[in-house]
């Protein structure tokens, strides 16, 4: 083989391998998508070609499943968590980025470390406390514990974005007589806006997919979507077509959000987000 042929040959092998890998990565998702549009009977007959139906998406919202309630809970819990986390994290991130603080490194390491504490460790005291305070099975309780996983990550991520904003504009405005708060409001916030938006979406995905806290702290009123999946276990086994439809309702919005912020996904994840 000549050099050129050899190169073409290698390229073909690489592309084949990539296609196989991509296919394997997509199989579980495709499988769920197919099942969601199948009837109960088609699921059990393993049909690859079938007449698609939207019936499952109606059924999951009906009695006795009421997936709509879980959808509302998930949206409120994730949304409010983000609304609290982002402003608080932004203030801290600005300060960490622009000033020298006493114990700065210790505080940053502590914040980073809390990100990695197993959820199952911190949930035990929360369960006991919430039981005494009557916060079990409430959205408020869930929002409070979700802040625990979202805050450290939001601080680190937003700090990264503010670090990237050049100091000169801020200094010039200070020389012109602006106060620090004016500088933050008029210069830093507009420039950091894409970063804040990205961090917000990230935190929303984390809170939306959160499982263990919701599993332990909710049982009826405040149940979120991932816990709602347990509803589709009937006496005769799992109702796969309904499970799949619910699965799509959980993952499709997250796919869209993830694609919106895809450029920052890796950067954000290295800071220890999710799971």
């Amino acid at each position, binding site marked *: 083989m000549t050099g050129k042929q050899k190169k073409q040959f290698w390229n073909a092998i690489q592309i084949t391998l990539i296609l196989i890998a991509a296919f394997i*990565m997509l199989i579980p998702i495709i499988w769920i998508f197919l099942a969601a549009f199948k009837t109960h009977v088609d699921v059990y007959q393993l049909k690859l070609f079938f007449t698609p139906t939207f019936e499952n998406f109606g059924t999951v919202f009906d009695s006795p499943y009421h997936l709509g309630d879980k959808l509302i809970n998930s949206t409120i819990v994730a949304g409010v968590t983000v609304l609290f986390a982002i402003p608080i994290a932004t203030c801290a991130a600005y300060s960490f980025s622009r000033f020298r603080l006493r114990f700065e490194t210790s505080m940053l390491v502590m914040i980073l470390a809390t990100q990695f504490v197993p959820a*199952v460790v911190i949930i*035990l005291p929360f369960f006991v406390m919430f039981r005494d305070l009557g916060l079990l099975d409430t959205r408020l309780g869930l929002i409070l514990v979700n802040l625990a996983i979202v805050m450290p990550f939001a601080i680190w991520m937003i700090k990264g974005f503010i670090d990237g904003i050049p100091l000169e504009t801020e200094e010039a405005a200070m020389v012109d007589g602006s106060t620090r708060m004016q500088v933050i409001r008029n210069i830093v916030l507009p420039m950091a806006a894409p970063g804040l938006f990205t961090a917000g979406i990230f935190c929303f995905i984390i809170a939306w997919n959160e499982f263990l806290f919701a599993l332990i702290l909710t049982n009826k009123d405040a149940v979120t979507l991932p816990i709602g*999946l347990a509803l589709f276990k009937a006496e005769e086994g799992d109702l796969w077509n309904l499970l799949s439809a619910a699965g799509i309702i959980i993952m499709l919005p997250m796919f869209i959000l993830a694609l919106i912020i*895809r450029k920052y996904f890796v950067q954000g994840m290295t800071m220890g987000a999710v799971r």
Partner: protein
Amino acid sequence: MRDNKLKYLLVLPAVLVVFATAVWPLVESLRLSFTVGRLTKPNFPQGYLGWENYTWAFMEEPAFWNSVEVTVVYTLVTVVLTTLIALGLAMLLAPGGRFRGGVQTLLILPFAMSPALIGVSFRFMFNPEFGLFDAFFGIVLPPLADISWLSDPTLAFVVCVMADVWGWIPFLTLVLIGGLASIPQDTIEAAQVDGASGWRVFKDITLPQLLPVLAVVLILKAIFSLKTFDQIYMLTNGGPGTATQTLSHYIYFSGMKYGQIGYSASVAWVMVIPMVLLTFLYAKFVFQKR
């Protein structure tokens, strides 16, 4: 307001939230780990026991050691497999271009999927009657069809590992692609001109330069593997028996199902210790990069 006051005021709310939602519960669960801590009995947490919960776990509970073993094996296998496959995939995708870029975008999808849902979809695919794998083997390798994957201890563990590796390959691949992109191309080209083989270039140039990124990825993956819960809960719920019961799952069960908060807090703290070590290792690398 002067900056030197303002700067602390800005940090205060965040530090308070982190203290209340992470530091306090950690300390409180340490305290609970020395108590009787029966959830269903009155006067919770019913007085102090000293180290009894810990000695009980270590001396009297085979289930504890079982979950330690499951977690350690699970962590080792998933970390090695995920890293190797992701490294290969990253090398394939690193050159970029429209096709490879498109696949990189696709990789984000599995990644936005909640671990609980990953567990559900794998349970579905490995269903012995109408799962995808059953159908696949029915055509390709009939003797392997009709295996009930999730009722066999070893196979159930394998399926859990597969689900985990599947869920983490995209992230590790994307991080490693970023690492590969930051290696200067001229050294590689110079070596190729000198006639070095592809393997030599990889071993002597690419791999050493990728090492810092690889270290971060390994530690991060180890941390997440050690605390695996969601997938396991949805996929096998620790079973059959306790074949796939990770530490997190064991803590959840003894604490929430049996109401032994004191005991499960002590096991939780046994788990915190390797986590702290890994976290400091990770923090060291992150701060080194700056």
